[in-house]
């Protein structure tokens, strides 16, 4: 069956080349004001993941390892 549409004729541009996606919006002062408040989002994400990891570790330790008894 013969293709009815030749997509090689289209010109594709990566979204990373569109200024509205990657260029600085606003001026440098505005950006500095945002950064000055610290990486709160990163801390929240890292805090949540580490808290989950720690909770799972304690869950296994308390609910599985301890009830299985000591060995030596």
């Amino acid at each position: 069956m013969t293709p009815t549409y030749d997509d090689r004729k289209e010109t594709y541009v990566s979204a990373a080349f569109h200024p509205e996606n990657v260029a600085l919006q606003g001026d440098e002062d505005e950006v500095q004001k945002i950064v000055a408040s610290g990486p709160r989002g990163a801390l929240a994400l890292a805090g949540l993941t580490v808290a989950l990891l720690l909770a799972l570790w304690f869950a296994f330790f308390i609910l599985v390892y301890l009830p299985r008894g000591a060995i030596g």
Partner: protein
Amino acid sequence: MAETVNASSSDAVDFSERRWALVVAGVVALVFAVIIFASVHWAAQPPSNVETIDASSLHLSGEFMEANLGTAVQPDGSAVVRVIAQQYSFVPSCIVVPTDTPVVFRMTSPDVIHGLLIAGTNINSMVVPGFVAEVRTRFDKPGEHLMPCHEYCSVGHEGMWARVKVVDRREFARDYGGQQRASCVR
């Protein structure tokens, strides 16, 4: 203006990173503290007995002769369980131990590497020919545990398993007390 804001944003990032480093150090310290406390409180440690034995003459003389296999109650009331792990069975294949009693498992192999694992407990050790694996534990409640070989030992590996029957210590004394080397093999 831009320079002062730059300095404060840099300070904010430095502060966050230092604070996060402290949090991570605290988490690591907490986990280590819990492990150390449990190990010291329980005297728990990975089985690390290094004791050699002649694998070629196990059946002829010494501790692992057939008549010596099974559970032996010691004068101090503790129990020693001697087991041979071989392609493709454990001898004895049904092990009986009393509750609330210090139990020592001593196991060795005449052929290849096998595994000692008692399901539902923390007992987990390799059984290496030429060495005696030793694990100390204590069972709090009666029950039955599967004891599969968990080191691939060749084509019959999947059929190599035994049972560990934990019985109340009074029941053990009544039913098995008369046996020099107790087992629940019928």
